[in-house]
C-alpha cells in the first residue's frame, strides 16, 4: 500500500486484505543477505559464522534449542545487536560490514528496512494503542498525522482491534497486545518483518489468534524471518527452515524435507525432543 492509498473502507474484511499487504509484492528477488555473522558475549561465542538469505515474499523460520543463537541472528538483522564480524544487506540498502577496522555499522540503515515484533510485545505503556502504532510513522518517518491515523485504523481493523484504538496496553489481553505489536511493526511499512518468538510469552489459548495474523501476513506476501518454538506453525507458513545449534546453521531446507527427513543427527534429535517429548 503506497502512502497515498485510501485505507480499506470495509475494515475486518478478511478477503479485502489491502491494509495488510506489503508495499512491494513478492517477486523472488534477493531481499536479505547476511554472511559470516559472528558474535561473542564475553567468552561465549554465540554465533560462529551464520549465513542467511531471504527472497522477497519468502518466510524463513529459525528453529533450534535455546542458546543456539537464533534470537541473536534476528536481533543482528535489526541492529539491536552489533555482530563482531560479517555483512548484512537488506532491500538494496548499504552492505553493512561489521568488525572491519574503521567501518561504522549503520544500524539505522537496517532499522529503516526492517521492523521487529518482540516476544514481550514491548508496547509503550504510556501510550494508547493508536499512539503506539503511529509513533514511528509520525515521529520518525514524518508521515502526516491524519494519514498515519487512517492507516493505523485500517491495520487495527484488519487484525480485529478497531475498537481498542483508545485503550492502553494494560487493558488488553496478551494476544491483543501482541497483535498491536505486529500492527506497530506493519505501520512502519518495512521491507522485512522480524518476529522474535512472538507467541512464547502467551497463554496457550491466546497463541492461535496471533499465529493466525502472522499466517495471514505470509499469505499477503510479506517477507518474514521468524524465530519460533512452534514447529507445527513453522511447518505451515515457512518456505525455508533453518535449524541452528551452537551458533551455526546445522541444516536448512524446505519444511517438507527438514521436518520429515532431516539429514543431520543433531536436527533429528532436536525434532524428536520437541515433537515427542515423552517418548
Amino acid at each position, binding site marked *: 500500500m503506497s502512502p497515498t492509498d485510501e485505507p480499506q473502507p470495509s475494515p475486518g474484511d478478511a478477503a479485502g486484505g489491502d491494509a495488510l499487504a506489503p508495499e512491494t509484492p513478492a517477486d523472488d528477488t534477493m531481499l536479505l543477505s547476511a554472511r559470516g555473522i559472528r558474535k561473542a558475549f564475553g567468552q561465549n561465542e554465540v554465533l560462529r559464522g551464520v549465513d542467511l538469505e531471504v527472497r522477497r515474499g519468502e518466510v524463513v523460520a529459525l528453529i533450534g534449542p535455546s542458546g543456539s543463537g537464533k534470537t541473536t541472528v534476528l536481533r543482528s538483522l535489526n541492529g539491536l545487536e552489533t555482530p563482531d564480524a560479517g555483512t548484512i544487506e537488506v532491500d538494496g540498502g548499504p552492505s553493512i560490514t561489521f568488525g572491519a577496522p574503521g567501518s561504522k555499522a549503520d544500524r539505522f540503515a537496517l532499522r529503516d528496512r526492517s521492523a521487529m515484533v518482540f516476544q514481550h510485545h514491548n508496547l509503550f505503556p504510556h501510550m494508547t494503542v493508536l499512539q503506539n502504532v503511529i509513533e514511528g510513522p509520525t*515521529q520518525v518517518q514524518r508521515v502526516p498525522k491524519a494519514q498515519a491515523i487512517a492507516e493505523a485504523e485500517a491495520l487495527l481493523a484488519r487484525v480485529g482491534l478497531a475498537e481498542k484504538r483508545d485503550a492502553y496496553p*494494560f*487493558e488488553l489481553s496478551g494476544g491483543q497486545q501482541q497483535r498491536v505489536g505486529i500492527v506497530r511493526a506493519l505501520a512502519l511499512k518495512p521491507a522485512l518483518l522480524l518476529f522474535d518468538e512472538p507467541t512464547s510469552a502467551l497463554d496457550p489459548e491466546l497463541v492461535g489468534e496471533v499465529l493466525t495474523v502472522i499466517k495471514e501476513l505470509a499469505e499477503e506476501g510479506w517477507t518474514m524471518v521468524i524465530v519460533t518454538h512452534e514447529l507445527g506453525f513453522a511447518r505451515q507458513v515457512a518456505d525455508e527452515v533453518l535449524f541452528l545449534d551452537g551458533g551455526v546453521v546445522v541444516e536448512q531446507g524446505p519444511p517438507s524435507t527438514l521436518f520429515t527427513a532431516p539429514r543431520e543427527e543433531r536436527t533429528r534429535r532436536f525434532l524428536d525432543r520437541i515433537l515427542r517429548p515423552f517418548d
Partner: protein
Amino acid sequence: MNEDLQLFLESFWPIVWGGITGTIPLALISFAIGLVLALGVALMRLSKNRVVSGIGRFYVSVIRGTPLLVQLFVIFYGLPAIGVVIDPWPSAIAAFSLNVGGYAAEIIRAAILSVPKGQWEAGYTIGMSNAKTLRRIILPQAARVSVPPLSNTFISLVKDTSLASLILVTELFRVAQQIAAFSQQFMLLYLEAALIYWLFCLALSSGQNALERRLDRHVAH
C-alpha cells in the same frame, strides 16, 4: 493569653507573606533549575564514557557529602574572598539548585534504569535515535516512577529554604525571627512558623497525590 492570641493573629499574615514572597519562589526556582541540572547529571552518570560518568559521580558525591548550610556559606560568605560577590537571593538559588541537582540526579538515574530495556529496543526498532527514545519513550515512564521521591526532595527543599535566613534572604523564617526578636515571644513565633511550614507542606502533599493519580491512569492496579 489574649495578648498571645493577638500577637499570633497579627503576625500570621506577615509570616505567610514571607512564605509566599520568599520561601515559595526560592523553592520553585531552585527546584526547576535543580531538575534540569539533575537530568544532565543523571545522563552523565549513565554515560558509557568513564570520564563523563566520573564527573557526574563526583558531583553527586560532593553535594551529598557536605552540609547544605556549608554549601550556602561557601557561596555567600566564601566566594567574596576570591573576589566573587553574589547577592543573597542568587546565592541562595545557586546553593539550593546545586543541592537539588545532586539528590534528584540519583532519583532520575534510578527511574531511567527502572524502565525495562525492551522499551529502549522498541524505540530503536521503530527507527528512533537514542535521544528521541529517551525523550518520547523512556522519560515519560521514568517520570511516573520518580514523582514520589522527587516530591520528597521538593518538600525537603521548602523546609531547607529556611537556611536562607542565615544569608539575609527575607523569607518565612526570617520574618518570624524578626517579629520574635521584637516581641521577645520566641516560643510562640517559632511554633507559629513551624505551623505555617506544615500547612505549606500539607498543600504540597495533596498536590503530589493529584499528580500521581494523573500519571497512573495508564497503569494497571
